[in-house]
C-alpha cells in the first residue's frame, strides 16, 4: 500500500496489526493508529492493559465451549437454569446472541463450526463427542445452527447421530423477523415462513 510509505515504521506496523481486526479496513486502521500514537501515554497503557487482561482471563468453558472466566462457566453451573435442555450453536458468539434474546434458560453446547467438506471440516473437528458425553440428563436438544447448506446438513447429521440415543432433537423455526411488516421480509424468508406455518389455537 503506497500510503504507508509516508508513515514512520512503528506506526505502519500498528496500522498493519489493527488492519487484521474484523471490520477494520485500511483507512480505519490508519485513523486509529494515528489517534493512538498522539494520545496520552497513560491512556494507551490503560488500553493495552485492558486488552491483555481480557485475553488472559477469558477462556473457553471446558464443558460447553462458551467464553468464560471460570471453569466450568456460569451457564453450566447455574442451578436456576434448566439442566434438561441444551441449545447447540456453531460459535461461542452465538451463545451470547441466544442469551441476549432472554428466551432460553437452559444449558449450551458450542460445536466450534459446522461440517464443511469444501473447507476440510469433518465431524471429528467439531465438539460432537463432547456433546455425546453430556447427553445423560438432557431430554431435549435444540439445534440452533445457521440455515445455509452446511448448517442444515450439520443439523441433519446431529439429528441422526443423537436421535439414536433416545433424546428429543428439535431445531429452530424459520420465520419472519418479529415486529416488522411483510414488506421487510425477503422472498426466501417469506416462502420458508409460509412452509412452516402453524394453525392458530
Amino acid at each position, binding site marked *: 500500500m503506497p500510503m504507508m510509505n509516508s508513515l514512520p515504521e512503528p506506526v505502519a506496523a500498528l496500522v498493519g496489526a489493527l488492519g487484521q481486526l474484523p471490520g477494520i479496513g485500511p483507512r480505519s486502521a490508519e485513523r486509529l493508529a494515528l489517534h493512538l500514537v498522539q494520545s496520552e501515554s497513560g491512556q494507551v497503557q490503560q488500553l493495552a492493559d485492558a486488552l491483555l487482561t481480557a485475553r488472559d482471563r477469558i477462556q473457553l468453558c471446558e464443558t460447553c465451549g462458551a467464553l468464560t472466566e471460570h471453569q466450568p462457566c456460569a451457564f453450566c453451573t447455574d442451578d436456576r437454569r434448566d439442566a434438561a435442555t441444551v441449545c447447540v450453536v456453531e460459535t461461542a458468539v452465538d451463545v451470547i446472541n441466544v442469551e441476549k434474546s432472554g428466551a432460553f434458560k437452559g444449558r449450551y453446547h458450542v460445536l466450534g463450526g459446522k461440517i*464443511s467438506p*469444501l473447507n476440510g471440516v469433518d465431524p471429528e473437528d467439531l465438539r460432537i463427542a463432547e456433546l455425546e458425553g453430556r447427553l445423560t440428563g438432557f431430554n431435549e436438544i435444540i439445534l440452533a445452527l445457521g440455515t445455509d447448506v452446511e448448517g442444515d*446438513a450439520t443439523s441433519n447429521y446431529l439429528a441422526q447421530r443423537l436421535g439414536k440415543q433416545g433424546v428429543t432433537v428439535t431445531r429452530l423455526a424459520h420465520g419472519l423477523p418479529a415486529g416488522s411488516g411483510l414488506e421487510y421480509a425477503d422472498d426466501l424468508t417469506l416462502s420458508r415462513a409460509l412452509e412452516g406455518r402453524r394453525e392458530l389455537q
Partner: protein
Amino acid sequence: MHLGHLRLRDFRNFRRLDADFGPGFHVLLGRNAQGKTNLLEAVHLLATLRSFRGVGSAAMVRHGQPGWFVGGRVVATASHAIKLYWSKNERRLTLDDQPIRKLTDYLGTLRTVAFCTEDLQLIKGAGRGRRRFLDFLLTQTLPTYLPLLQNYTRAVRSRNALLKKRPIDEATLESFTHEMVKLGNEIMTRRRTLLPELGPRITAAHARIAPDGEELSVEYQPRVKEDFAAELHRMRDRERALGSTLLGPHRDELSLQLNHKPAADFASEGQKRTLAISLKLAQAEHLAATHGAPPILLIDDVMGELDAPRRQAFLPLLNQCTQGRGQVFMTCTEQNWPEELGEELQKWEVTDGELKR
C-alpha cells in the same frame, strides 16, 4: 424500462463514453471492429453482471489499463444509478451508491435479452448452455431461484468432496445427500412449471421465422425420473467409483427436436441459427409477459443473417419493445441495413471507440 445514460471508462476499446439515450429504437452503425458490440456487451453486463461473450472480467479491460468502469442510469418507475468497477484487486457494484451485498437484491434492476452470434452455442453446445438459458429466465422471474441454485451447487460440490474421500464418511454423506435431494427437487419443480409457459412461446416464435413444414418440439428432460433419493441410491457404486454426483438437475437437458430429430446433430447451420433466435425471442416475450414490461433488447448483427421474410417475424417483438417506454439497441453495418425498419430510428455512429449521433 430503459437505459437513460451509459458511462464507460477503459472498457474494451472505449476510453471514455458518456451517452444519453431515450426510450425507443437505437441503431448503432459502423464498420466492423469499431466497438458496436462492445456497447451492447456493456449494457448486458449491467443487467446480468456477465459478458454475453462468455469471457471473464479481465478480458474487458482496455489495453494496458488497470481496470474498467461501467455505469448506467436505469429509468423505470423510479430512476436508479448503477456503478460497476473491476480491477485485478478490486470489484465494486453499487446501486444508488449503496454497495450490493446480495445478488438477489440487485438482479432485476435492469433486464436485457441479447441476440448475438454466441447464441448458436445454445443449439450446438453441451446441455450446460441450455440449462443456463432456463436458469437465467427463472432467476429473472423468481427471486428465490438464485439462492436455491447456489445452495444446490454447494451441496453437490460438498457431496463430490465426500465421495472422493477414503474411507467414505457415510453419516456425513447422508446428511449432505438429504440437503441436495431437497434442493434439487425444488429446482426441478421450478423448471417443470416454467416449461408449459416457455415451450409454446419457443415453438410459436419458431413457427413465425422458420419455413413451413419444420416441426419443432421442446421438452424438459430431467435426469431424475420419479424419486431423486431412490434413483440416486441405485447409482451408489458408480458414484463411489467415480467420486462425483451422477444424478440431479445439474445434468438436466432441454431437448430440442426438429422434425423428430435432435437439432444439435441433424439441423443445418441455418436451421440452428433460426432455432437460437427463437429461444431468445421466447425469452424476451416471457420476461415481457411476467413483468408487464418488455426487457431491453440488444441485437448484435443478427438481422443481417436473416432473409427478409424471417426479419418480418422479428417486427412484432421490436414494435412491442419500442412502444411505450421500452428500448432496443441494434448494431448494423451499412451493408446489412434492414430497410423495412420504421422511420423512428435513432441512429448513432460508432467509430474507433467513439459514439456520435
